[in-house]
């Protein structure tokens, strides 16, 4: 078997010049080699995000990306740094295209390709592809995470409905501070303190808590947290267990940040 797997029947969807950035001791440092990012569709309809060393032509990174993954500009820096968020992990790149004014367009093209890839008719589109061919070590981080879970090495955080139990919710219903904040978000026609308690204790709210928990516990967890407007507060990977933990900590970080202001 070949060391650098060239996928058979793959079709290249996009290429641009970019180098990798390596995470070293909490810092992101550029790898000076010239390279390119390639997006290609394999014969099973899976979208691969690859990084290729221009000098050797080797595919050094091969990551299967799903519609809930994404490619974004790193906003904390003015330099040409971009990141791929996939299955709860991040990989960083720096653009090497001659014309920096096109960077944002390229970024958007990559993100669009990832997000709008055709979903095949497989009933479980989010299933993990079987790694039958040799893949670079980091190609399937999700499988690693899942394996850790199944071996019980990562502690599962209780889901939101277990944190916000009926007893907890009931006690909040009488608190004027919570009433003031929450009443505007109640369903139409139910915007009163009496209805607040009814809503807090309703099976519909419990259902909603379960739905959010399930979405956050899915592979797309970080993307879901980002979509809740908490992107900038997600703690570094080594500071949270699973994604529910990440959500709770992100919300606490937001509260702490607001307080500092």
């Amino acid at each position, binding site marked *: 078997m070949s060391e650098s797997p060239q996928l058979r029947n793959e079709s290249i969807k996009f290429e641009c010049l970019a180098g990798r950035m390596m995470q070293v001791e909490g810092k992101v440092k550029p790898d000076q080699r010239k390279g390119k990012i390639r997006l290609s569709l394999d014969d099973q309809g899976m979208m691969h995000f690859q990084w290729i060393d221009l000098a050797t032509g080797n595919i050094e990174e091969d990551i299967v990306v799903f519609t809930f993954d994404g490619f974004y500009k790193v906003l904390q820096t003015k330099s040409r740094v971009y990141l791929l968020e996939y299955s709860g992990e991040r990989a960083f790149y720096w653009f090497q295209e001659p014309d920096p004014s096109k960077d944002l367009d390229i970024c958007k093209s990559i993100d669009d390709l990832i997000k709008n890839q055709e979903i095949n008719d497989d009933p479980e589109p989010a299933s993990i592809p079987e790694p039958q061919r040799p893949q670079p070590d980091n190609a399937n981080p999700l499988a690693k995470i899942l394996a850790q879970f199944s071996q019980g090495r990562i*502690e599962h955080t209780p889901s939101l409905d277990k*944190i916000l139990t009926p007893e907890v919710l009931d006690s909040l219903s009488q608190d004027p501070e*919570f009433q003031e904040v929450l009443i505007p978000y109640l*369903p139409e026609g139910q915007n009163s303190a009496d209805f607040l308690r009814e809503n807090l204790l309703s099976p519909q709210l419990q259902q909603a808590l*379960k*739905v959010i928990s399930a*979405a956050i516990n899915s592979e797309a967890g970080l993307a879901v947290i980002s979509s809740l407007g908490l992107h900038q507060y997600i703690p570094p990977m080594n500071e949270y267990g699973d994604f529910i933990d990440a959500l709770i900590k992100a919300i606490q970080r937001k509260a702490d940040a607001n*307080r500092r202001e």
Partner: protein
Amino acid sequence: MAEWCTIESDPGVFTELIKQIGVKGAEVEEIYSIDNLEDCKPVYGLIFLFKWMSGPQKECMEFYDPDLFFANQVITNACATQAILSILLNSKLDIGPELRNLREFAMPLDSQTKGLTIGNSEVIRNAHNSFARQEPFELVKVKATEDDDVFHFVSYIPFNGHIYELDGLQPGPIHHGECNEEDWLEKIKPVLFERIQKYSENEIRFTLLAIVNNKKEIAEAALREQQSHISAIQSKLMSLGVEIDSSYMEIEFDEDYFNNLPDDINQLQSELYAKQEAAKQQQNIVENESFKNKKWKEENVRRRHNYIPFILALLQKLADKNQLIPLLEQAKKKKKRDNPEQQEALNK
């Protein structure tokens, strides 16, 4: 074919659903005990809901009453709605123009095509989908809870002197003997009982729903009648010189009823008392039913509500008050207490 979403199997949901389709004077009620089945009379049909298991194909009728509307289930997620429709389409209820047209159009078609016709009805689909569970995340389709097992619904109806089981996954109706409208509930009980026992033994959850008359409308009609009788009796008493303090005087009454009233004041007064008591009872039913309908409505509003902003605001407020992390720790502790083995495994 356009998509049908899964909806919750709840009497409040189904009652509003059939109203939206245009059915008049009916509601869906949950039956908790089949011993009380007769209390709901008249029952137009029963819906049995259970977790689907594959099983041998049942003995179905190949030829049956041509007036019986039997449709195969060709759309997924719509089986509850389809079970309700198969009762309505075979009932004497006022099912409204949409269902009348559907019945007329699809009657001559085979059962497969009948199923397709239901699937293609925009009015039915829109009503059904308006009860869609909130799926707030486009990013990810999640199985919300363990409640999402595959459920199946079958209907039982009396029709032209026979009891039929209508199961859209079977090739035809299943015959359960002869009946009349009076005794069909009595006769269907053993069939239901057998089925319930089978599921209970396997610890399979099931639900029994009935399509019955709209209880509020019935009570309101009865109340109106009692009130008109009261009004008639009071008028009669006044004509006999008795002083009456009445709030029912403006209510119109039936001349025949008035003319047939006795002339004896005592008799009239005891009759009046009986009618007033009966009216009170009906008034209670109307109030209880109004309350139930109001609750159902509120629940349906909540089913359609997006709670994400509410939950985020709640979590944020807890975090602002430094209560969130303690609650998380508390839940973790409880989880450890509840799952000691798992904890042991974690420590290894």
